[in-house]
């Protein structure tokens, strides 16, 4: 087996030894770091995570960070409304979320400097500013590596697909993409999971029996080849997943009672949130939901009030309430963000707002995150954080913290370079109750 050497003198073997057994291979300094980490993460509550990506960059000024007193060329058309937490106001087009404000936290004055969609998205999906020479793993990949899961279920599911790539962690940690967006009340086909082409479980069992008879060429030697052994194990696991009613049920949102499903509405986002909730309940570790249409360069207010905000309002409020009803809110951390905010100053030519990473909002809920609060603040015109502000790295560190993952843990990149999970972030302590 290849023995990868690394720039810092650690071989992979050393790394494993330190990670598994402790003792001889563990230096004092790294031991102290670990001890620190344990202490830090003793209180972690979340066992699953849900990341909702609002693609295109939602306008902070018209959603969760309104500036009713800003000059006309900044303010925008919407008015704030009072939430169920005194003193917290959000957009009038989010009335349902206003009624569950106690369940989530708004982060204002989050700031970075990457104004391109792709790079900004990579940034908020990994907690690391993109580098040209290294691909950082998305949250889901890291969580798949760090947390154990149910063998009959994928650990990381992307609805319908995700910007979170496995990066230097390798293809093993890639998400399972559903490829399609579910729709409430309709049967849902999931790539690789749903039985295709008229097959029944019995058909698949029969085929698998045949396969096990025919797949004996390597015989005893299989145990001695890492590759063949791995293929064998993946084969068993895949078969279990494909045939188990557990995994198929998890993906089948038509199994939800109509009363429970109703609040999620008829939108794709609503159905995706409902599916995500079912997956969390079944034991999937990490789910991403991707929702687009937020790149409102033109007719910003029209697009938001008619197309974007109503389904968001409906879906997220139903999600938070649903997680709570099922007793899952405490053990599921939810992180909702776009890749950036939008220009506080209105583009009057197009009646829209353009890309703006210097100031944006993010939402977090569940998994020990204290709801009903606003952290951070932006200035009077919504152009910059008022004080220090937060970085996407900080929020990423906090997200991992909620899951009991030390964001300062070091991985080796494929070239052997040691890199922390989040390189420049600090946990935001106020997030946690």
């Amino acid at each position, binding site marked *: *087996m*290849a*023995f990868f*050497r690394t*720039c*810092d*003198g650690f071989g992979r*073997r050393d790394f494993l030894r330190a990670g598994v057994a402790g003792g001889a291979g563990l*230096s*004092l*300094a790294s031991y102290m770091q670990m001890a620190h980490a344990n202490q830090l993460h003793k209180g972690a509550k979340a066992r699953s995570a849900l990341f909702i990506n609002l693609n295109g960059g939602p306008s902070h000024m018209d959603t969760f960070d309104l500036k009713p007193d800003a000059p006309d060329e900044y303010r925008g058309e919407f008015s704030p409304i009072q939430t169920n937490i005194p003193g917290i106001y959000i957009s009038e087009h989010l009335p349902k979320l206003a009624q569950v404000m106690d369940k989530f936290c708004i982060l204002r004055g989050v700031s970075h400097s990457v104004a391109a969609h*792709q790079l900004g998205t990579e940034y908020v999906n990994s907690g690391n500013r993109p580098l*040209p*020479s290294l*691909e950082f793993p998305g949250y889901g990949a890291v969580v798949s590596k760090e947390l154990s899961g149910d063998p009959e279920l*994928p650990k990381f599911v992307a609805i319908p697909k995700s910007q979170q790539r496995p990066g230097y962690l*390798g*293809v*093993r940690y*890639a998400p*399972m993409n559903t*490829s399609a967006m579910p729709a409430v009340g309709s049967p849902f086909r999931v*790539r*690789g*999971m*749903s039985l*295709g*082409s*008229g*097959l*029944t479980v019995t*058909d*698949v069992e*029969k*085929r698998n029996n*045949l*396969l096990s*008879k*025919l*797949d004996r*060429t*390597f015989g005893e*030697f*299989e145990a*001695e*080849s890492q*590759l*063949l052994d*791995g*293929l064998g194990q*993946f*084969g068993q*696991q*895949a*078969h279990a997943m*494909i045939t188990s009613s557990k995994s198929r049920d998890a993906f089948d949102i038509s199994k939800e009672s109509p009363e429970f499903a109703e609040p999620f509405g008829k939108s794709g986002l609503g159905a995706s949130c409902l599916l995500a909730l079912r997956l969390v309940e079944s034991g999937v570790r990490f789910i991403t939901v991707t929702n687009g249409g937020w790149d409102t360069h033109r007719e910003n207010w029209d697009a938001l009030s008619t197309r974007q905000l109503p389904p968001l309002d409906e879906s997220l409020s139903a999600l938070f309430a649903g997680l709570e009803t099922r007793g899952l809110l405490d053990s599921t951390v939810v992180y909702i963000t776009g890749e950036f905010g939008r220009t506080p100053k209105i583009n009057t030519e197009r009646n829209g707002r353009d890309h703006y990473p210097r100031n944006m909002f993010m939402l977090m809920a569940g998994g020990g995150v204290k709801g009903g609060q606003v952290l951070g603040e932006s200035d009077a015109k919504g152009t910059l954080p008022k004080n220090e502000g937060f970085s996407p790295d900080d929020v990423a560190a906090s997200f991992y913290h909620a899951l009991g993952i030390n964001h300062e843990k070091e991985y080796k*990149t*494929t*070239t052997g370079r*040691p890199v922390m999970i989040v390189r420049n972030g600090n946990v935001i302590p106020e997030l946690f109750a």
Partner: protein
Amino acid sequence: MKAHGTIFTVLLLTGAVAASDSTIDTAAVRFAADATTETPDFQRHVVPLLGKLGCNGRACHGSFQGRGGFRLSLFGYNFKADHDEISGRVDPETPPESLVLQKPLMEIPHEGGQRLKPGSWQHRLLLNWVKADSPGRSEDAATLSELMVTPAEVQFRKDGQQVQLKAVAVWSDGNREDVTDLCRFQTNDDQVADITSSGFIEASASGDTHVVVSYDSAVVAVPVMRPVSDKTGKNYPDTPTPTKIDELVIARLKKLGVVQSDRCSDEEFLRRVSLDVTGALPTVKEIRQFVANETSDKRAKKIDELLERPGYTAWWTTKLCDFTGNSDDQLNNVTPIRQAASQQWYEWIHARVDQNVPYDEIVEGLVMAVSRDPGESYEDYCTNISQLYHKGNDRSFADREQMPHYWSRRNFQQMEDRVIGFAYTFLGVRIQCAQCHKHPFDKWTQDDFKGFQGFFTGVTGRNTNPRPENRGEYKQMLAKFDTGDLKGGQLRNELRKIVQKGEIIPFGEVYSTPPPKVVVVERKGRKQNVRRGGGRTATEARLLGETPIDLTGYEDVREPLMAWLRSPENPLFAKAFVNRVWAAYFNVGIVNPPDDMNLANPPSNAPLLDHLATGFIAHGFDMKWLHREILNSRTYQLSWRPNSTNRLDERNFARAVPRRLPAEIAWDMVSQAVSNDDKFARFASSTDGRAIAITGAGTRYRGNGDASYAMTIFGRSIRESNCDCDRSEEPSLLQTIFLRNDSQILEMLDTKEGWLAQVAKENGVPFSSRTPSRTDKSKLARLAQLRVTYTNRLTAQQTALARLKKNGGNENQIARMEAQVRSSRKKWKQYLNPGATDNSEDNTSHAVVNVAKAIDDAYLRTLSRKPTNAEAADATEFVAQAENEMDGLRGVMWALLNTKEFIVNH
């Protein structure tokens, strides 16, 4: 060689002899006594000692942030910076109270714990240095010439055997010193040999590895082996060695007691070599012919034949695009049309691989690239490039002399990035370590890195502007079009539309700038040297491991770099390539990972690597020579079936190692296996639509077509980070789920051009493109019933009509009846005309599928062999129990696609 044990003793004696000359004793001895007054040397003793104690490691003061406000250069070798740092921690008045002593002694709290024992030789060494006013390294200090480690090779025979390594530093001033106690020791595999921090090795499991000794800039790897069996030397069984490669491999295996497996069967060979060389499976006909062929050189002939197929060209173009970093993401905005740059790059290499242009010439076309062909004016250049984008043109970028896009990548603009990318691609070296600190496993220092950088300073790469003297022309050409003040992306977008209409648009270019010229001018009556022009081009640079070169004489400062690359003396260029080709055929490189050639990671078989590299150079960098040389060896043609000595060995080439096929080949192979005979056979003559012919890559690349999802989960190279590991060949759960149950795969089984459709047609049976489900089955039953009903009703109408005509019925009646028949035909069309064939149901239901032939065929087209009797029986039974034969065969094909034997090359 003599009997066991002796070699080991002899080597030890050699070590003892070396110590007996004028070598200075080790520091541990010299500083053992309290009375010693010797002043240690900063470079020779103090820094190595700090390294040995772990002070300058990454977790401690070698961290870039330092620790506790104290920072040392990682792994030493920045003597000035280290000396400055330490100077603040020595107390020349009361030396014992120096922080540099008190901390590691734990006289005062030290987060890193106690590192020095009071009164130890290490303590004394440091103390004496402080007492002598802590001298640093002088500018003209001697440098390390060599680190001699004895024994040079260790062979263990049984458990518990031990050996102590000894290291002697030879300095450029002629000084020789035993530095064993100042070296750092590591093992590459502690299962085979564990080594203590003082260089003491103890035998453990059998196998082979290296222990690595580091001191100052030197890194020395000492091979340690313990034979796996008693079949060593003379006891080694008689094994044929038809080629030089085989001789060299066997020479090594004889030492290890590892016996080679037998030669593989013809079927195994044909499948393996076809997939390896052309990325495609052999046809059923080809397998039959090859097996039946009894000539002795049939394997060599087949190799020649395969190397001439388009699959070879496409696959090795893809590999060269991997190594050279043809990434669409990094080439964003380099051409007016998205993805054109990576397409052109692929085409350019493809044309050359197709012609078997020597490797060094292809490399020259990349390394020395500028956008303009020799003698091409700016106007001609713009015309020629514009024409590439004109509709219906038959020109290709491949006709251009060079490949400038290599220099245009976004991640190849900083000089540091160029050094890293270049060293990765052409030298197989991870020089990036030396960007920030001494390379921990090689001799490269930051100075080497910086010195090398100069060769990359003369190129303007981003392709956004023309040469300065052509900027006017650029503007004039642009002025012809109504582009207003458009800039950046909007301008590019407009120019794309214009050029696609057939206009000539201005282009930016990759160009080189010679270093500044030194001219003598007279100023105020005095002659002065003045530097003219040259931009940021360096005037001096240093090739890795060489002395500095004056660049001012060169028009293009890359010239000496290219000359060095292809020179027969270059230690890395040829090796990097032959090693990668070897790795493609043997799962691991002779140096592995193949792109990590460094002193601490020596080749598993150095003579073999030398032989291939030397031969490659001697044959004028002929790539096909190299492939042929390797593929014709018996070693390549071994069976994967292990024997008791080579079961666990995957790096000495004693058997074939099963390996997961690369993403593109896995996908192509699945598509091929399920295709009908015609389409299957086309894989040998064309690469159209194949994954191995996908041109670009990148994390955001959208040119993968249908194969897109498969390429992601099977780990096609993203060509992103200067690492062969951008391509992944590890298995994953998603890959298995994909092959078993993805609708894409399931649907491929049932296409019109598919094998199943062909079998149905050949056997005259109907083919429904899916396995009927329970609801389908009831639907089908109803359908069948309706078919009978409507067919009967129509027949009745037709009979009535015929009777009417026969009986001379009146015209109105006949016309009405005819209209009724027409309307019934139309109304019941879907029930009356099942399937594409004209065969009525009655006929087809009596047809019998030749299941035995179909099963044979399924095996040959997937596993390139016939089924064993047991396998044939199992498959036949499965078909017999299925709903119908076609459904049964679909299950057999599915199972074969999911065997391990299918997805690995073996």
